[in-house]
């Protein structure tokens, strides 16, 4: 508690407050832009913080993170075209509401839902994260390796429609992660004698290339010649009757969202869908669902926001990113030479608590700034598409160049961007590749460390109860399709996979 107050003391200085406000505004502005989801928003805004000290940078990131998420739901409501998986469900009810002239109410329900879900989620971070971190310190290399294997399997199996394509994407990521000097022996791997490659491929370059360059090229190949017309919207507000219908969904959201965010199950896609189904079942206005029921906006938005908070617990305490956005955030930590994981709460206590405090501040700023600014954000949806995608390429280049001030990184980004284009064309999800690049090297380290302890015996990988449990879960996921065949009747709500594969880009 004391540490949290210290965190607030750090985060509430005028400079840091300014950073948080800039972060929220930039995050929302970039997130509202069509085609840019929170992961790409964070990746594109990374270079802005290169010259800052870490605390200020992460306070800004907290704002960008929540701002980007909120921006995505605005696009969903006003354009009916979600830019990211977390906002897919919001479009179900939000867009019909907007078409019926209740866009202002939909935006307000989304904004307050985000706030409520985020605040509850962040309170849960405060309560849970130190506890998890304390116990995570004791878990050994075999356990960590097992958890990473679980992350690999989950990200390839849960997401997307085709497992084999998920695995292909993961392997591409692992290959990119291999490039550079082997950390334990200093041997060169896949460097082909190039000095540029000996340092490894910068994760930021990979993230920006796959998300921004790949996306811009892909959209360019199929650019809709007549962009959607966004629905104009006034200042968001809620009537008493609306409030009566929304407060319960707001509070129910975090119950569903937070746990799902914390486990590697593909982020907010499944929990927002579950929330939608729950609200539909519990609502007294079932007939309105599909035609603009406000509960269907309030619940999923609160869920999405709480799941983003849950994601942070896993990312900060275990160093395990469960969504694309968290993966990019992890890359940002690594840029500063900070390794999230069990030791983070001991080594960087000041920074972590300032970050958590600024999550509260960022959420509050988000609510205060975004309700009055909503009509302005809606105007951003009208940006001419050539400028939008030219701008994405422009800032992607700035970002990749600024990492090392090296033209080689621009060429690397181009090649990986072409790869991202191909992956979009053939339905290879992008997230497994990013997780592979980030976690691959860490997983290799943990595996080799485990085997070193056991003197090469493979038993060293499974000699702790925790590792065994995790591997059992892995096997369950792997053989789930087989198991399902033997079940008498498939229970419908177990895998409510949304009909459309969507990676938050």
């Amino acid at each position, binding site marked *: 508690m004391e540490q949290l107050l210290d965190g607030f003391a750090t985060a509430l200085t005028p400079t840091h407050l300014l950073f948080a406000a800039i972060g929220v505004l930039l995050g929302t502005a970039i997130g509202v832009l069509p085609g840019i989801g929170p992961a790409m928003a964070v990746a594109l805004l990374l270079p802005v913080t*290169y010259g800052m000290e870490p605390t200020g940078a992460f306070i800004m990131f907290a704002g960008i993170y929540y701002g980007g998420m909120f921006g995505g739901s605005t696009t969903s409501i006003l354009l009916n075209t979600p830019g990211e998986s977390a906002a897919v469900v919001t479009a179900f009810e939000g867009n019909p509401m907007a078409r019926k002239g209740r866009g202002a109410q939909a935006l307000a329900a989304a904004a307050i839902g985000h706030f409520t879900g985020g605040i509850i989620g962040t309170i849960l971070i405060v309560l849970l994260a130190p506890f998890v971190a304390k116990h995570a310190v004791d878990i050994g290399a075999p356990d960590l390796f097992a958890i990473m294997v679980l992350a690999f399997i989950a990200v390839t199996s849960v997401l997307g429609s*085709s497992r084999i394509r998920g695995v292909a994407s993961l392997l591409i990521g692992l290959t990119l992660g291999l490039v550079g000097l082997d950390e334990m022996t200093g041997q060169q791997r896949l460097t082909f004698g190039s000095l540029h490659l000996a340092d490894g491929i910068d994760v930021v370059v990979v993230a920006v290339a796959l998300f921004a360059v790949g*996306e811009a*090229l892909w959209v360019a190949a199929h650019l809709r010649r007549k962009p959607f017309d966004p629905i104009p919207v006034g200042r968001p507000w809620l009537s008493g009757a609306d409030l009566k219908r929304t407060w319960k969904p707001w509070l129910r959201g975090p119950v569903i969202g937070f746990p799902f965010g914390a486990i590697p199950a593909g982020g907010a896609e499944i929990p927002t869908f579950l929330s939608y189904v729950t609200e539909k079942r519990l609502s007294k206005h079932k007939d309105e669902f599909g035609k603009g029921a406000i509960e269907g906006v309030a619940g999923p938005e609160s869920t999405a926001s709480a799941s983003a908070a849950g994601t942070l617990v896993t990312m900060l305490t275990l160093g395990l990113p469960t969504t694309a956005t968290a993966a990019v955030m992890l890359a940002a930590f690594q840029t500063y030479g900070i390794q999230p994981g069990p030791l983070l709460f001991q080594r960087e206590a000041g920074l972590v608590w300032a970050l958590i405090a600024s999550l509260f501040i960022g959420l509050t700023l988000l609510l205060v700034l975004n309700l009055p600014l909503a009509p302005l954000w809606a105007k951003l949806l009208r940006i001419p598409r050539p400028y939008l995608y030219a701008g994405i390429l422009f800032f992607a280049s700035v970002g990749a160049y600024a990492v090392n001030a090296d033209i080689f990184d621009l060429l690397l980004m181009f090649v990986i961007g072409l790869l991202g284009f*191909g992956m979009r064309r053939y339905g290879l999800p992008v997230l497994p590749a990013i997780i592979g690049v980030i976690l691959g090297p860490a997983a290799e380290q943990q595996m080799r460390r485990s085997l070193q302890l056991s003197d090469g015996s493979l038993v060293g990988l499974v000699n702790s109860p925790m590792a065994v449990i995790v591997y059992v879960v892995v096997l369950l996921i792997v053989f789930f399709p087989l198991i399902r065949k033997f079940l008498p009747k498939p229970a419908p709500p177990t895998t409510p996979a949304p009909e459309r594969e969507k990676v938050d880009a």
Partner: protein
Amino acid sequence: MTATRSWLRERSELGICALLVVLGVLVLTDALRIPTDFAQRGPVGPKAVPILVGSLLLVVAVLLARDVLRGGRGEAEGGEDVDLSEPADWRTVLLLCGAFLANAALIGVVGFPISGAILFWGAAYALGSRAFVRDPLIAAGLSILTFVVFNNLLGVPLPGGPLMEVF
């Protein structure tokens, strides 16, 4: 001849399999070249993981090829501005690539303010914008503003080139 071609066109995803095979072979040959006789700590050396990843790449390439030949197709990604009903517009993509590479080629020579403006204008042109006064003005303004903000305010150095030496 045309039959073969349309057969291949239908199954162009086999190209991804080919890419995976190339990657796999690359990873494996590189791994086999790593000397293991010295500096190895622990029972597992720097070779093990590349060999595993390389082999898996080959296995997945085969499995994916089987899936494609049995009629499986990767689902192209949709999006806000994506219209999948039209065939791919390669001209736009190539022009965009050109604009991007022009920036990479020029940034060291003429500096970021100029190369960045070329990138933005070129990309906007590629994407169909034909405002011959407004586009270059926006490109130049954005590029110079970005340079000043990053280089002077945020402390992220970008090459100024000859243009900035004048000031």
